[in-house]
């Protein structure tokens, strides 16, 4: 059974999955990879084309279907990259518009302010765990705490950060309502 998608649904899928595909590709290839934005376009075009041709037969979820296409494209890229490794890769500015860059900077500013407002006992753990990249066990040993205490403090710090971001940017999650609507 292949599922048919309306034009409207396809448009929602593009908007919904562009950030997820972009995130995954950037993570796999590194943000310095010059053509990552083009690869995102490529994957989206493949996805839409396959959906229009009825190639999605609901043997898996739509998310998994799109992930499989993304992953295959990433593997191709890595293969090509290995071949062309002698060529130097120049850093290019992201295609994100000025508005997007501005929002990112604002968010980074709020995160920094919140970080420095945290009590030293939380900052210390964040530093060891994320900056020094120690494991929870190592952090616990270093500070004479239980692993559970470390986990709790990490969780608490994340909660505070999330709360202050939500306070300043309440609209961030709104477009995910679309996916929920689509899923049913």
């Amino acid at each position, binding site marked *: 059974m292949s599922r048919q998608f309306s034009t409207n649904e396809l448009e929602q899928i593009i908007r919904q*999955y562009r*950030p*997820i595909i972009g995130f995954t590709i950037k993570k796999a290839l590194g943000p310095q990879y010059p053509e990552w934005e083009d690869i995102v376009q490529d994957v989206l*075009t493949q996805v839409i084309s396959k959906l229009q041709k009825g190639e999605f037969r609901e043997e898996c979820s739509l998310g998994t279907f799109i992930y499989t296409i993304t992953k295959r494209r990433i593997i191709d890229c890595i293969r090509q990259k290995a071949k062309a490794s002698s060529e130097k890769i120049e850093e290019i500015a992201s295609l994100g518009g000025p508005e997007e860059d501005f929002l990112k900077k604002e968010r980074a500013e709020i*995160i920094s*302010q919140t970080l420095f407002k945290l009590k*030293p006992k939380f900052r210390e753990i964040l530093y060891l765990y994320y900056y020094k*990249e120690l494991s929870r066990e190592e952090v616990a040993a270093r500070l004479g705490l239980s692993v559970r205490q470390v986990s709790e403090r990490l969780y608490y710090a994340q909660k505070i950060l999330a709360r202050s971001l939500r306070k300043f940017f309440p609209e961030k999650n709104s477009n995910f309502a679309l996916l929920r609507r689509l899923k049913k």
Partner: protein
Amino acid sequence: MSKCRFEELIDGYLLNKLDTEEAERFEEHFFNCSRCFNQLQQREEVIKAIKEHGPALIREVKPAQSRLQRWADEVVMIFANRQWLVAPTIAAFLIVIFLIFSPFSKEEPPSFVLNGENVLRGQAINLISPIIDVNQPPLYFEWKKQGEDLEYKISLYDSRNELLWSSTTKETVIILPEDIRKKMKPGEKYSWQVKAISSNGILVAVSSRVQFMIKDEN
């Protein structure tokens, strides 16, 4: 909201501590779980900030206050010393608000020069796709959101600058109808442009006219 069991993997994924299989399982998961993807994006921002501050994070010194905060503190100080200022200031503030939102203040439409590719004033819309040569007629067009409550008018032109297709939408992406795609040929150049129109019919932003070619398959 209950916690998703995959949330445990976010840190490991971002710090590259998961093995390949685990990482792939988590990736497949966040393609299906918007909650985890949201958290993942946010955690990435937090880790980036922590990496940037480094050891400064555990020193007591606080970074310089943001400009806005300093300004707010100063305003508070002024009023703390001169309380008689409060009433007239609030009155002045209300008048300003009234003037901004009063029905008498007319919204001036920004001016654009739309002959050819020149856009002189006003906002510009950033086009996302297609902006480079493509292997097949595009399946969709996409551009950056320009603001709330706007209608976008997209126009597609052929190499002779004749309008091939035009449509309007409130979304920032639109699927190209099949019958128009069939008319588009390899080796030909096309261009497209988007205009944003506010709910009261004023043109508020335009994109530049972007050209792309459909590559010859052979």
